[in-house]
C-alpha cells in the first residue's frame, strides 16, 4: 500500500461531473447542500472524497485521507459511505428509508431486515434510524447505507461503526 504524493493523484470534481449530478438527483440533496465543499477523485483507488474547498494536496507529502470519503467508487455515486451519510444524510429528500426503533436496532448491529421487493425500487438507500434514547426521547438519525437484496434490506454499516441499542 502506498500513499499518493503527486498533485495529480487527486482531481477536483466540478458541479457538472456525473458523480455530483447523480448524487444530487438520486438523493435529492438541495443545490446548496455542499456549498463550501469540493468532491475530489483519488485516481489510484477510484474513491471520491469530500473536503472543505480550501484543501489541496501538498506536493511531495503522502496523503492518507482527503477530508472524508464519500464513496469508494466514482462509478457508484449512490453507494455512499456511512460517515458521509451520518454527516450529510439528513439533507437528503429522496431514496431514504426511516426505520422504527426495532428496525434500527437490527440495522445498526449489521443485520438484515426482511423487506418486500415491491417497496425497494432502488439498490441503495440512506437509512434513517429511530433511536429511543435512555431518557425516552426519540431521535431520527442517519445511520448508514442500506442495500436491497432478495427481499431484504442489508446493512452496509462498517463493523467499526455498528452499535447496539
Amino acid at each position, binding site marked *: 500500500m502506498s500513499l499518493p504524493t503527486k498533485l495529480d493523484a487527486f482531481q477536483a470534481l466540478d458541479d457538472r461531473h456525473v458523480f455530483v449530478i447523480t448524487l444530487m438527483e438520486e438523493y435529492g440533496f438541495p443545490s446548496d447542500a455542499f456549498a463550501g465543499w469540493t468532491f475530489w477523485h483519488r485516481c489510484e483507488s477510484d474513491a471520491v472524497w469530500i473536503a472543505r474547498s480550501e484543501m489541496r494536496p*501538498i506536493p511531495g507529502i503522502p496523503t492518507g485521507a482527503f477530508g472524508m470519503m464519500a464513496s469508494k467508487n466514482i462509478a457508484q455515486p449512490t453507494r455512499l459511505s456511512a460517515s458521509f451519510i451520518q454527516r450529510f444524510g439528513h439533507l437528503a429528500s429522496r431514496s431514504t428509508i426511516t426505520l422504527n426503533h426495532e428496525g434500527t436496532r437490527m440495522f445498526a448491529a449489521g443485520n438484515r431486515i426482511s423487506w418486500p421487493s415491491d417497496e425497494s425500487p432502488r439498490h441503495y438507500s440512506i437509512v434513517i434510524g429511530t433511536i429511543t434514547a435512555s*431518557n425516552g426521547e426519540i431521535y431520527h438519525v442517519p445511520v448508514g447505507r442500506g442495500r436491497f437484496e432478495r427481499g431484504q434490506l442489508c446493512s452496509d454499516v462498517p463493523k467499526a461503526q455498528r452499535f447496539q441499542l
Partner: protein
Amino acid sequence: MSWLEKCLQRYKPIVDDWDAFMHACQMPLPRAIWHNPLKASADDVRRLVAARVPEAQIIPWQTLAWRLPPGVKPGLWPEYRLGWIHGQEEVALWAVPLLNAQPGERVLDLCAAPGNKTAQLAVAMQDEGLIIANERRWDRLVSLRHNLERLGVTSALITRHDAARFTWLDGTVPKTPFALGGHGFDKVLVDVPCTCEGTTRKRNMHRRHSVDAYRKSVVQTQKGMLRRALALTRPGGLVAYATCTFAPEENEGVLNSIWPHVAEVVAMAPPAGLRISPGLAAWEGQTYRDDVRNAWRIWPHHNNSGGFFIALLRKLPEPSHMEPATDGHSVAAGGGIS
C-alpha cells in the same frame, strides 16, 4: 520502593507533595467525554449524558465536557459510535483551547494520531478552514482517520511525513526560521512523542523498557519538531508544544533550545478551578530562559488528572538584522534548522 516510584524518584525535588503525587499516579484515570457540535446539538447531548450517567460531572473549564465515574465505558454507547461524543483524557483537552483556532485558519497538527486534538481543532474551527493532520506511523494512521470520519470532520488533510521535515502547503522547505517561501500556518500543534510518564494512570509503566535511554534520543526528535513547527508558522502565529511527561529535558529543556528572537513563550491565565504549576527555571544545573516559566505543568495530584506539560509560543517578526549566535545555536548547512 515500587518500580514506579523508582522510575519517578528523580522528580522528588520538584514535586510539592510526594506522597499525594505517588498515590495519584497509581489511581485509575477518570474518563472524560466531550460533545461534538458537528454532529449533534449541545442540548440533545446534555440530556443524553444526564440520562445515561447522572453522576457525570461537567468539566467547568471546557465548553461542554464531562468527567465520568470509574467503570463507565462510553465507547459502547450509540452516541459515541455515531460521533456525537468523543472520549479523551481530561488533561489533554487543554492544548487546543489555548491555541484558540478560528474558522478559516490554516492549522497544522504535526503529530496527530489518534486524532483527539485534531478533532478538537476541527470543532473549534467549526470544520471550516484547513487542518493538516500529520502522522508518521502507518499503524496510527488508521485510528486517526477512523476518529476523524466518525466525528464528521471534513476539513482535515491527513498526511504521513516526518514531522521534523514537514513543508509549507506548497511543498517548499523552510531554510531559516523566518523565510516564508510559501504561506505560513496560523497555528501549529506539536504534541510530541515523549516518555509518557504522565500517563502512568492509564498505562502500565512496567512494560516500558529503558525510559532513560529513550528519553535521551527522543529529546532530539522533540527539538527538531518544535523548530520545524516554528519555521512553518507565520510571524505572530501560535505554536502549542505539549507532552505527557514530567521530564524537564523534554519540556522546559526543549523550549530553551529555541532562539529567543524566534519565538516567545506566552503567559497564559489558568481558568478558575484548574491548578497549574509554572515551568521550571532550572534543572540539574541548567538554567532555562526566563519565559519558560510561562509554560504550564499539570501534576496528577493537583487536578485528579494525568500529568501534562503545555507551552504556547508566539512566532516573532523577523528581526531587521540577524545577530551572530552566541549561545550555541546555529543554522545547519543544507537548509535544516538546528
